[in-house]
């Protein structure tokens, strides 16, 4: 997607959230096909459909679908595309949503395909940044946690790179941002730093700190995990160290990487971020069905 496309989604989400656009899915039917469970994303899409006046049906459990009877993915998509105006697909296989979009006569929204992309998360992250800081460019944005495997931070990096921002990657050495992504930033002349010590971020004057969970299963040695998880934990003291204006985001669910004491601070915008999934997905559904333009 281009910078203009991303801006269009963010601006439309803003109008939806302010109540200036409504009823744009009247008479439209949305299928939510979740071939792997993801309750939060599915409920968020379904809520977005209802709030925009549309109807929704779908599968939440792949074991209950005809795929469990041996039907191919391609046949499922061809069939369901005749039942709805737009399909929302979550699938554990990378590229499943793109394949569906080629087979389906109706638009397809990717709600996550394996380790590849989760674009609607990126859209709602951008919307939250714009809403909170008034712009998407010339910001200093820190990303912290599992930068090696986290698809959220990879997609967000790609998107933020289009808007001339400075990026600071904070992670243990074993979970650094992949080299191919850093090379893309180099090629595009995007300013970035990679650091492993959160304290160093105190000098960066961050506008946003985007925190992600470090998954225990990434570490062979549980002791090593405990050590790393303890270092990359955000508390009130961390916020004070980073600067009083820093906003803290997180794609959720969190485990213990952000202390609950942070929730009440004005810096914490991760629940607003989660709620912004609704207007963002409303905007996307409206744009792809032609209900909005």
């Amino acid at each position: 997607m281009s910078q203009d496309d991303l801006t269009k989604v963010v601006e439309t989400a803003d109008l939806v959230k302010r109540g200036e656009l409504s009823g744009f899915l009247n008479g439209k039917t949305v299928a939510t096909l979740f071939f792997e469970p993801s309750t939060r994303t599915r409920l968020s899409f379904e809520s977005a459909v209802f709030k925009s006046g549309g109807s929704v049906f779908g599968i939440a459990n792949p074991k209950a679908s005809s795929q469990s009877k041996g039907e191919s993915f391609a046949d499922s998509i061809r069939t369901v595309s005749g039942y709805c105006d737009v399909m929302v697909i979550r699938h554990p296989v990378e590229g499943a949503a793109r394949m569906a979009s080629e087979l389906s006569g109706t638009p397809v929204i990717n709600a996550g395909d394996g380790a590849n992309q989760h674009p609607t998360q990126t859209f709602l992250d951008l919307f939250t940044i714009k809403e909170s800081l008034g712009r998407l460019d010339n910001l200093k944005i820190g990303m912290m946690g599992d930068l090696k495997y986290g698809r959220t931070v990879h997609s967000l990096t790609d998107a933020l790179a289009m808007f001339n921002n400075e990026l600071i990657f904070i992670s243990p050495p074993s979970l650094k941002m992949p080299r191919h992504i850093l090379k893309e930033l180099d090629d595009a002349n995007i300013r970035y730093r990679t650091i492993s010590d959160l304290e160093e971020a105190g000098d960066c004057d961050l506008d946003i700190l985007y925190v992600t969970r470090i998954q225990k299963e990434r570490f062979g040695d549980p002791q090593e995990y405990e050590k790393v998880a303890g270092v990359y934990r955000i508390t009130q003291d961390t916020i004070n160290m980073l600067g009083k204006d820093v906003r803290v985001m997180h794609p959720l669910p969190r485990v213990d990487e952000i202390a609950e004491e942070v929730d009440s601070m004005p810096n914490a915008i991760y629940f607003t971020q989660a709620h912004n999934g609704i207007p963002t997905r409303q905007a996307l559904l409206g744009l792809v069905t032609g209900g909005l333009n």
Partner: protein
Amino acid sequence: MTRAYKVYSIENGTVIDHIPTPLALKVIRILGLENEGIMTIGIGFNSEKHPRGKDILKIENRELSYEETDKIALIAPDATINIIKKGEVVEKRQITLPSEVKDILSCPNPNCATNQLGAGKHFLLENRDTVTYRCVYCERATVVNPDMLATK
């Protein structure tokens, strides 16, 4: 004295030279010519470019298109193409990497839709210098190697 040809010359067709040994058979597979026409293959000739030697492939009565010969660059970027008509070389052709490749390379990502769900194999050129292609489905970029050639 008559020169003794190790690989017989052809009257009409396409000669592909400077294929690194032992990739001649893989070039045939890339071109999809496994069961088609008459071909002569020479393997392991001395070569200044290729320390392990070079292979030569002569395809009779078939003038390959640019679209076909460019596919050879995926595994043999230094290969040269000569088009032969009535025993004479009528065209010497350089090859260049195709910007798009369908149905030739398999994605090495086991969790890609091409390997799990039957999506068609489809890559786009990412970096000409490193011969890197990106899978259209799982979006992973890979440096091409001969092991990626799809089996039919």
